[in-house]
């Protein structure tokens, strides 16, 4: 089977990821749990080691060489991530622990300041729990109401009643760009333009989009954009909240502590300017610096090439999996509206059993509700098995998955 699509050599890329060259259960590892987290290339691992080996220091507060180095690397990482997502200024890049913290920050800070009992928050039933629960907590605090954009049978957002759902009372719309459980790629344009027309803000959850495609928040015209580092070849514990400067400027701090103040007095304090106002305490310095290295890595390969490879891989996987007896694949049938995530059931075999059999063959997939229980309820299931691909996956990986599913069918054959 041809491994190269266009200029893309997925085997050469795979070779740059040390975890992927190991043997698991006596077979070479096939890692298909990328929607949960990605593996890390050697350059990222080395950047982490280099930071702790040579430059480790606290930032913004030491008048010594190491602190200067750490501060410079940390702040240039911020510039790097601003460029990476097309932000106008690095002041708009707030470091977070990940997507979840980014959403919690907006819900707590902006939400508590701006929402009251008659207001509405518009979500979709496709969201990850991290884009539902923070808003539920906010709704409980403020008395605001949560409404949902529903999905159709294939897992596309149903926008037919968007004008009714997103009206005068709507203060914020929070929506994922790509579904983590079904792979659906959402049409953000009509949602954002409807939100604009009623004066509502829009938060886009980019956790599943950023690893796979170039992002331009300016062109997208949203107000907040959140994502995690660990799904894009970066480390865990670091992520980005991007927000429009004029909105971030008006928001109160999320947490109090060192780093986020101008002046502390006995009874009150004043806040640091952006972005530090939202970054209380010693940040994840290494994480930020290394995330920038991951961004370099992805852009050196190029998102056009990554996208094309994943598109080819998805087409091949859907075709091969479609031929497996008893398989039921959830999500969009239109491949142009689907990312490289495949949720499925294999006959009556419980997804946990499917995953256990695959594990015994060295194949890692995810099974569960994928933190998207509203999606599972919509599908009428409790859990699904999910295979998700990334730039280092090969056609050979798909073949191994297919043969693992045949094994499962054989073991559970009546």
């Amino acid at each position, binding site marked *: 089977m041809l491994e190269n699509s266009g200029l893309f050599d997925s085997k050469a890329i795979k070779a740059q990821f040390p975890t992927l060259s190991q043997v698991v259960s006596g077979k070479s590892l096939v890692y298909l749990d990328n929607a949960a987290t990605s593996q890390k290339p050697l350059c990222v691992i080395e950047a982490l080691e280099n930071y702790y080996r040579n430059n480790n220091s606290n930032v913004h507060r030491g008048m010594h060489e190491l602190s200067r180095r750490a501060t410079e690397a940390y702040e240039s990482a911020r510039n790097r991530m601003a460029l990476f997502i097309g932000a106008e200024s690095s002041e708009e890049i707030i470091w977070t622990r990940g997507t979840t913290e980014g959403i919690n920050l907006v819900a707590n800070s902006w939400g508590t300041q701006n929402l009251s009992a008659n207001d509405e928050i518009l979500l979709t039933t496709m969201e990850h729990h991290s884009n539902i629960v923070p808003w539920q907590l906010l709704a409980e605090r403020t008395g605001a109401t949560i409404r949902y954009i529903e999905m159709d049978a294939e897992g596309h957002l149903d926008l037919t009643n968007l004008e009714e759902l997103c009206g005068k009372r709507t203060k914020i719309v929070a929506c994922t760009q790509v579904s983590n459980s079904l792979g659906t790629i959402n049409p953000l344009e009509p949602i954002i333009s409807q939100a604009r027309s009623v004066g509502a803000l829009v938060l886009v959850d980019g956790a599943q989009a950023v690893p796979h495609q170039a992002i331009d928040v300016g062109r997208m015209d949203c107000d907040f954009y959140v994502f995690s580092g660990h799904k894009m070849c970066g480390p865990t514990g670091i992520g980005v909240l991007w927000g429009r400067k004029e909105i971030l400027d008006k928001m109160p701090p999320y947490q109090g502590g060192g780093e986020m103040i101008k002046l502390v007095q006995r009874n009150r304090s004043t806040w640091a300017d952006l972005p530090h106002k939202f970054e209380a305490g010693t940040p994840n310095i290494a994480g930020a610096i290394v995330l920038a290295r991951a961004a370099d890595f992805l852009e050196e390969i190029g998102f056009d090439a990554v996208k094309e490879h994943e598109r080819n891989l998805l087409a091949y996987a859907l075709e091969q999996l479609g031929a497996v007896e008893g398989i039921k694949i959830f999500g969009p049938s239109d491949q142009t509206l689907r990312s490289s995530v495949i949720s499925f059931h294999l006959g009556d075999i*419980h997804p946990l059993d499917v995953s*256990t059999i695959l594990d015994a063959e060295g194949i890692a997939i995810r*099974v*569960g509700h994928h933190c998207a229980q509203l999606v599972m309820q919509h599908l009428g299931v*409790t*859990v699904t098995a999910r295979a998700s691909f990334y730039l280092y996956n090969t056609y050979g990986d798909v073949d191994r998955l297919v043969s693992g599913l045949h094994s499962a069918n054989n073991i*559970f054959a*009546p």
Partner: protein
Amino acid sequence: MNTLASLHQQLILDHYRNPRNKVSLEECDSEGWATNPMCGDEVTLQLSLDKDTIKGISFGGKGCSISQAAASMLSVRLRGSSLETASLLTSQFTGMMNSSIGEPDAVFMGDLLAFEGVRKFPLKVRCALLICEAFQKALEKANELGRREALMEDL
């Protein structure tokens, strides 16, 4: 796969495909329920008692081969046993699955030894133990009932 492992697998699959005691009881004295939120598996358990002896037992629920087979296999062992023996067996089984006891008593464990291989899958260990959790709850309920009845007799 070695013969023992495959024998064990056959045993588990047999209980999964042909579950024993999966018909709900017409009358039950106590019941329990347990779920694994990580995967959505759930097991329900009904007991009918004759004093301290489990006269009838039934389990229900849905889930993977491990949770369902463990429930089926344990239900076979628990039927007709005393509550004391049942507690001992479920706690031994729990200990074996959590690797919190030494070598399990192979004779006492019997067919349940088939689940030893599941120990290397932590998520599945939880599935195998759902039936024990459900039994524990049913036992607590039965004890409560027993206490209440004893109290009534005293009055």
